[in-house]
């Protein structure tokens, strides 16, 4: 990974839909080089280009982080269930005594409670913790500022 890659990545972190011509003007890197480097980076360092949404504007007023501790035999099955569940936005494997952390998006608190109840009824859940996300103060800021290129 060289300085050109980092410049490209920081610009994509600011705006993943940035046209290559705009990025070329901002970074002084030729469009063809950006194209090639982008293709290469999409094979390893870039997981996905996506869009962050304000879910409340879409009628989803409850966002929560829910951690689950599950019986060892049920771990894989729970993981598959969480990945396919329509209320789940992100799933992480964690290690502080719990197994998975889930970011869930729900229309209301009742839906979140139903989700947790469903998980508990299908799998041997030993413990669960949750909290509500009230406000985003900062999202995906790491390497999103081309001024901070010295970071990496």
């Amino acid at each position: 990974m060289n300085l050109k890659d980092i410049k490209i990545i920081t610009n994509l972190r600011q705006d993943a839909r940035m046209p290559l011509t705009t990025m070329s003007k901002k970074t002084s890197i030729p469009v063809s080089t950006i194209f090639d480097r982008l293709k290469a980076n999409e094979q390893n360092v870039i997981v996905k280009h996506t869009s962050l949404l304000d879910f409340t504007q879409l009628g989803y007023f409850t966002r929560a982080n829910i951690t689950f501790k599950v019986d060892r035999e049920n771990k894989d099955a729970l993981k598959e269930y969480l990945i396919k569940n329509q209320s789940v936005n992100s799933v992480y494997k964690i290690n502080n005594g719990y197994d998975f952390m889930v970011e869930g998006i729900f229309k209301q608190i009742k839906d979140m409670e139903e989700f947790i109840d469903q998980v508990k009824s299908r799998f041997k859940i030993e413990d669960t913790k949750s909290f509500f996300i009230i406000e985003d103060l900062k999202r995906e800021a790491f390497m999103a500022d081309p001024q901070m290129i010295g970071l990496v």
Partner: protein
Amino acid sequence: MFKESDLLILNHIRKNSRQSLADISRKTRMPISTIFDKLKKLESTVIKRHVSLLNFSELSHNIMVNFSIKTKDNEKAKVFLLNDKNVNSLYKVSPNFDFYAECIFRNMGELELFKDELARLNICFEDNFIVNEVKREIFQL
């Protein structure tokens, strides 16, 4: 209020925000001009930002830790966390904690320095290590 066609565009953009309007048009059978107009409207309302998600370990940042934070001085903690380079995302949360921070570190040394700074600011926290990101931003409308 958002129509079914808006949600369809959002789902496509969420899967790959670098898709061309022509690609989205082919998949949705909506005219490019309609998609262009709708996307502009969505970008001023429900879309906060288009962002590329990274595999941080490929950038030599192998340690991801999430902190649940409780503090008596919310403003001081918020200023520190908003400005710290290791904080990738920061949320105001409830109950039991005030903030939730997703943090990225190059090594354990950087993590320990961060924890020392939290202690210096009298910030209480619980931390958990992210062993693996199974899925991110997969919610579909």
